């Protein structure tokens, strides 16, 4: 993983830099620049040309391929079990609320939703807090053993900790925690990725002079952390929080093992819908839709941050 050296991302992408002309900024939304300049020479294929119909067409096909299974679930979920037999159903029926109430009867939906929210929120707060603290120390403070410990963090990032579930289950049973949401929360209170992510972000973003200045002004270490590091770390904390929340929310294996069907998370409850011999798929798919709504809301609110997080993570490594 050490080959993935961080590269700085230019805030403004530079177009075709020519020696006699200053760099033009990228007008990503195509607004604000009138005339031919809008049709900037961009892109890897069309040098000097705008992306054509083929580009948009292929992308649209890809997106429809990704969205149709979801739409299909909505259509079937709002119809009856017979809707599923149709070849390419496109129009939703009027049965959604009937099916939804069947879902609420079959599984403890609200309990599961509450559990999932509590679990994901606590894990997110914990991971973000501890990762920011440790990431700041690794990025900006000098201490004996720093480099060795950082190598350890990077090495553990590649280890699938999922494989430790058997001893983890034994410990939880010994403590009498099985069946409680605490057992789901505790194993994910910290992640090596979080520390690495915050460290990579903070190492560039806080100037050493700022920390030095705080020190000269007489701020002690913890005060420096709160007044200098924390404000600078906020964007990265938001992104890390978003991803941690997603990870905790989607986890299935560990909650399935450690929780009972009477006190489930949304994911384990959803999987129970399918376990009967006779499966009413319109009800099952309604459940899938209901379980997707919370993340859809999150996506609508914070989709841009999610995207910039994925794209920064790529370059940052």
């Amino acid at each position, binding site marked *: 993983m050490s080959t*993935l050296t961080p590269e700085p*991302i*230019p805030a403004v992408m*530079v177009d075709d830099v*020519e020696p006699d002309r200053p760099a033009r900024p990228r007008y990503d939304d195509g607004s604000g620049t009138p005339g031919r300049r809008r049709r*900037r020479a*961009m892109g*890897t*294929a069309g*040098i000097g040309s705008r992306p054509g119909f083929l580009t948009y067409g292929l992308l649209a096909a890809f997106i429809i391929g*990704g969205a149709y*299974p*979801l739409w299909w*679930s909505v259509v*079937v979920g709002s119809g009856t079990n017979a809707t*599923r037999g149709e070849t*390419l159903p496109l129009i939703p029926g009027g049965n959604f609320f009937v099916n939804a109430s069947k879902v609420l009867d079959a599984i403890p939906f609200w309990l599961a939703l509450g559990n999932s929210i509590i679990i994901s929120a606590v894990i997110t707060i914990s991971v973000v807090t*501890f990762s920011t*603290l*440790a990431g700041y*120390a690794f990025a900006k*403070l*000098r201490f004996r053993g720093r480099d060795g410990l950082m190598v350890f*963090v990077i090495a*553990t990032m*590649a280890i*699938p*900790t*999922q*494989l*430790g579930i*058997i*001893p*983890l*289950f034994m410990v939880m049973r010994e403590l009498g925690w099985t069946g409680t949401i605490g057992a789901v929360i505790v*194993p994910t*209170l*910290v992640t090596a990725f979080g520390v690495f992510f915050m460290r990579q972000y903070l190492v560039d973003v806080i100037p050493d002079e700022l920390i030095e200045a705080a020190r000269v*002004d007489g701020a002690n270490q*913890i005060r420096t952390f709160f007044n200098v590091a924390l404000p600078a770390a906020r964007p990265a904390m938001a992104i890390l929080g978003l991803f941690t929340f*997603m990870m905790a*929310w*989607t986890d299935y*294996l560990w909650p399935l093992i450690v929780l009972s069907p009477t006190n489930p998370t949304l*994911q384990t409850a*959803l*999987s129970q819908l*399918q376990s009967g011999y006779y499966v009413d*798929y319109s009800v*099952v798919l309604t*459940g899938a839709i209901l*379980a997707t709504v919370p*993340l*859809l809301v999150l*996506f609508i609110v914070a*989709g*841009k941050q999610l995207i910039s997080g994925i794209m*920064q993570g*790529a*370059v940052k490594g």
Partner: protein
Amino acid sequence: MTTTIRPPASGTPTPQRRAAASEPLTFRQRLSRFDVKASPYFYVSPFFILFALVGLFPLIYTLVVSMHEWDLLKGQGPFVGFENFVEILGDSMFWNSIGNTISIFLLSSIPQLTIALIVAYLLDQGLRAPTFWRMSVLLPYIVTPVAVAIIFSSAFNEADGLVNNLLNVFGIADQQWKHDTFLSHVAIATMVNFRWTGYNALILLAAMQSVPRDLYESAAIDGAGAVRRFFSITIPSIRPTLIFVIITATIGGLQIFAEPRLFDVSTAGGIGGSDRQFQTTVLFMWELAFFRRDFGEAAAVAWLLFLLIVAFGLVNFLISRRIATGGDRPNRRTRRARERATRGGAA
């Protein structure tokens, strides 16, 4: 707030400071020094303590469990050395699960990366409303694996599922998506691809955007076509990211659980098919531990899978490094294009 004035670590000491150094330190100075020295450890210790408890200890203790007879209910039995490993390595169901895992992994990662590369390339064309396109591409990522498994398990239903219905339109007969080994692997790989292709496309897009545009232009002037530019400039330039994506796909792909567990639950009981035709290794481990109650053997499977993941990660790393350095000796045209680009940038 100015409570302490600490001298900087280095630099020529002024007479004033020398005088201060010869005096014994005040309590505040001592406190401040302690603060500077100890604080970093306080900051990193929560992570290391928690990680040791919930990450490292279970992984190592798995080794201990794997060397004992160990029942889910009866608990620890006698020490048996590597007997569990021998047992597992001689178990055809273990090898079946490994074969399934690798097959599903290949069926998902290769098409997924290919399509992600294409989508990233399309997104890198300077589209209008890029945020709209990026968000649309990412949409499947917010559907949780369990929901994806449920949706596709229904769509791949053999009797009247969406996929067979569509195939019928083209005159193709119903396929046995849940009973045929290969087809079930295709179906499960489809679920993985559905969720991750757009995500990986965005990662690759970010890397593509940091490739200097003038590189492409010079190559175009030299007469390199779009395909040529893609393979000779884009791919080598995004190499580190490509390796990163491949390694992450490996670590995740070899641990697939939710999809096979929930594919065809009603007839196969969630252990990976009536004939275990799509039982992955994590699913096999789960069955061993919680159905057959054999923690010892399940722990052995966990360690073997761990070794497999590490091995695969390394192999992938080496292969992808070679592939990506296919342009290691760039042909004259690209090399010239690059040179020109650097000269142009310097001028």
